[in-house]
């Protein structure tokens, strides 16, 4: 991928200024990367990440924070340097496999995952008749090892999602259909005021807090995992969770009362909708699949817990 943005003058001057130093640090000679190519790579990376209108000082700082040696190695590999590949394999082959095993948690899947990544790294995939090497997209923002893990994880998640999608489609065809049609009458407890108050409270949170909440409540991550993701101590996250739960509750109540609900009413609304939440959740999940697909199947559905509702639903549909 090539940088589409034009290279700004400040980046160019910063690169020119620091090239000698960075070149020496990167060890380009050993891996057969020309000084000019390094300059081009640096310009490309800086242009990609630096916002428009950055200063030269900002560019210099940015360039100095890059992992220049790993960047040079990755780009030399992408360019097909044998010595670079040798170095890369000695350093990362074992780690790559271990990371894959840790992510996939199963040996064969791990091998599969690692092999597919190797294929990408070697550039066996071609695009427009040109071999593309995944390493060419490495920009040295983080460590090469970390990048490899991230790429592995992305690959794993993509595959998992794909598999899950296949599986879940089947499941959805069975019991997701009942929610396929929009509920004719909104649930009384899923008060619009409650929803809007909740949304407002969530929107008022900072992105980190929302991320923590999502990771904990939606992804089911443990506090320790979240703490590691954010690089803080577990107890910090634990305290943050407690605080968030309390303040969210307070804010939602305040929001509802602002919308004209009595305090008691607001509290009840907050407590009552536990079961309806499930409905709500499922509905939001179901929204991912096209609703129309399942409409035909609705007659075959066994009438389960929501019998009355479904009857209403049916009458709504038929009419």
């Amino acid at each position, binding site marked *: 991928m090539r940088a589409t943005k034009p290279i700004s003058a400040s980046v160019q001057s910063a690169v020119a200024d620091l090239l000698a130093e960075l070149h020496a640090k990167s060890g380009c000679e050993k891996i057969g990367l020309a000084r000019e190519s390094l300059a081009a790579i640096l310009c490309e990376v800086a242009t990609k990440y630096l916002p428009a209108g950055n200063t030269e000082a900002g560019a210099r700082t940015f360039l100095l924070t890059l992992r220049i040696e790993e960047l040079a190695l990755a780009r030399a590999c992408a360019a097909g340097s044998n010595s670079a590949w040798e170095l890369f394999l000695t350093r990362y082959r074992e780690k790559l496999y271990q990371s894959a095993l840790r992510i996939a948690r199963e040996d064969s899947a791990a091998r599969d995952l690692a092999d597919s990544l190797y294929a990408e790294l070697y550039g066996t995939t071609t695009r427009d008749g040109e071999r593309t090497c995944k390493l060419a997209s490495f920009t040295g*923002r983080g460590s090469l090892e970390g*990048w490899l893990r991230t790429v592995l994880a992305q690959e794993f998640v993509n595959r998992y999602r794909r598999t899950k999608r296949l599986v879940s489609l089947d499941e959805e065809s069975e019991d997701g259909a009942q929610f396929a049609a929009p509920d004719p009458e909104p649930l009384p407890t899923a008060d619009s005021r409650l929803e809007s108050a909740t949304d407002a409270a969530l929107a008022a949170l900072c992105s980190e807090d929302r991320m923590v909440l*999502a990771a904990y409540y939606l992804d089911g991550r443990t506090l320790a995992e979240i703490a*590691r993701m954010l690089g803080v101590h577990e107890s910090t996250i634990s305290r943050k969770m407690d605080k968030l739960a309390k303040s969210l509750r307070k804010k939602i109540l305040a929001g509802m009362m602002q919308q004209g609900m009595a305090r008691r009413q607001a509290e009840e609304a907050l407590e009552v909708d536990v079961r309806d939440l499930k409905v709500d959740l499922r509905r939001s999940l179901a929204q991912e699949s096209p609703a129309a697909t399942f409409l035909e199947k609705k007659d075959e559905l066994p009438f389960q817990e929501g019998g009355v509702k479904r009857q209403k639903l049916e009458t709504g549909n038929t009419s």
Partner: protein
Amino acid sequence: MRNLPKIVQARLQRPTPATAEAHPDADLLTAFGERSLAGRERDQVLEHLARCGNCRAVVALALPAQVELPVPAVRGANWFRWPVLRWAAVTAGVVLMAWIGTVQYHRQRPKQFASSAYDAKQAITTPAQSTQAASQVVVPQAGMRKEALAAPRAQTALAEKKAAPPAGEVFHGRAYSAGAGGGASVGGAIGRPVNGLNVEPRRDLAFAPAPQSPAPAATAKQNPTSGPAQQTVEVSGASQMVEVQSEGVQVTTQSAAQNQIQDQANPNEAGEQSSADRVGKAKPALVQASPGLVRAPLQGANSSFMKSLVPRWTISAGGALQRSLDGGNTWLEVNVAVDDSMRVSHLRRAQTELATTEAGAQTRTVPKTSAEGKAGSNSARSADASAASATMIFRALSVSSNAAEVWAGGSRGALYHTVDGGNRWSRVVPSAAGIVLAGDIISIQFSDPRNGSVTTSNAEVWTTGDDGQTWHRQQ
């Protein structure tokens, strides 16, 4: 699950369609996971992560393997680990505090006891601290005493009232009414337990009683009926420790009281160590007081803190000079004639019982002296002359207020003087115009370290104005 409203989870999930936005590339996610992103970039990634479950999963999966920290093997009881040391330190602190508290308590208790006596007799509290203050207090006391003279009745009542069971109170009451004896005794009692205060309070106290001495005498004169009653109180209250000091009454009654007080106060103020307050000691008069009565306060006085290193002096019934270094429990005969080997006296540990009885007998000279004191005559004249024998018999004793300077006189003109508490004695032979004091000395009175008089059995009175260097004889 924490107490988060379910609606929150629902609404969290709602904005899932974040797919329109491009996922951050692997580099940014890596940098985020490695915490090398900052500022705007980090916020953007976080914002995306808050909405994108996939990217959250990627970040979580891409986390480096957790470095397993080697868990230190649990060793056996290690007494030098910090938690243990911490509690050990706390325990040590508690123990230390308890120990200090105990020590302080034991140290404070006699002090408190003493200070109650001090409080009762306010004039004495300050003198204990400094000599200068002492003299200041003595003078008001003299004034106070004059008031007491005007109201002998109240005085007596006060004395009787104060003769209450608590030792300090008893002593005080006695000191207040009887003057010298009680006062000195209190001083001794107070001074002893507190090291370093030994000498000072005694000296001050010895002064303090001096102005008080006219009181009983005057009381006796103006109100004969109340006099004996009061004296009874004194006697019953007086312990053996009073015996020498109590004679101060005699001295001060003989001297012109008020001037004498000032004279005594001034040298004291100047810090003169050897006290001017010399007291005569007469042979014990035969007074019909029961020993039990005398002993009663002694029991209180014998409590541990009453022990003293300040020597006490007395003359036994047999005419031997005796000294006690333990507040009167045991009496040892003192050999004054070491230098001239007049008499080799053997040291004998006298029974406390005996000493007590003797002390009581001697103390009983006080009321008698007080009663007759205005004339300044020797009540000791009634001493049994038959006690004189071939060996030297002491009959008169004068002890300075700090008990260091002692004059002792006896048969055939024997007069001995010590200035170091009885360790070294020197014989003094008073002579004037070729006449040497040869009679039995029956009374020695020193009003201050320099001025004193010696009375003999043949009615001679020898006076000195220079601490015994030169003497004048008066018939």
